[in-house]
């Protein structure tokens, strides 16, 4: 089941510029672990002949990060927040060929 996308105000500064925080609802987070596709990895390896951008990976990571972001937004939405401040991204290689994309922030109610 595809969760309905929710639109929240987000920023990575301590406030939502131009708005006032009226209530803080605590930390929210979202994460996703993605493994590389063997075929894509082989093609990326061939692209290493000349180096430069590996587009397949750029897209894969962008998609996964959006998914993590979406999970965080769902969590904030369930708590009744309408904004998330101080959003941070963290990426780490957890196993050979797999990366965890983690995003966290503070859910707030703004006016």
């Amino acid at each position, binding site marked *: 089941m595809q969760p309905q996308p929710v639109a929240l105000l*987000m920023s990575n500064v301590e406030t939502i*510029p131009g708005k006032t925080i009226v209530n803080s609802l605590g930390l929210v987070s979202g994460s996703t672990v993605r493994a*590389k596709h063997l075929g894509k990895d082989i093609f990326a390896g061939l692209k290493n*002949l000349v180096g*430069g*951008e*590996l587009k397949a990976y750029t897209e894969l990571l962008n998609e996964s*990060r959006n998914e993590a972001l979406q999970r965080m937004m769902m969590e904030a939405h369930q708590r009744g927040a309408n904004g998330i401040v101080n959003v941070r991204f963290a990426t780490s290689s957890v196993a050979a060929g797999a990366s965890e994309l983690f995003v966290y922030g503070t859910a707030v109610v703004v006016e």
Partner: protein
Amino acid sequence: MNEGVVFVVFYIVIPVVTGLAVPMTSWLLGRWYQNGLFKALEVTEAAQGKGFGDAQLVSYQKKQETIAAEYTTLLMANIVVGPSWGQMFLMWVKSLFGGALPSYASVLDYGRREAIQRLKVQAKERGCTSIVNMRVETSVITTAKGNDSKSSSVEFLAYGTGCR
């Protein structure tokens, strides 16, 4: 005499030449290709300003009262870059002696600058006039070492808060 020449050619010259041919070709091709990428990047930078040294792009958090914005959004842009086989070979050679790796540094420099340019494109698309608290994250995605992976790549993620 003749046997000695044959020995040298077959057991030393041919293996060394074939062994070096792939990294050398890759290094030359990679240099040509990456120079092209740099030229394209410089054109974009000339058009929309360099990432570093831009007043519209700051990495500090402005205090609440000083930000007067009618619209705020989280912006993020990423790029995955990898070195060429020739550069990997040079890295391996250099790792025997240690020291700076200028050819690999240029790959990372390209990735970082390109990620910032992409962030700026996003900001423009959403009508933002400034980006506050910009951060650049670096993470290793795959390493072509020990057969874990076939490719070698590093990801750069640039993110920040776009304001209008």
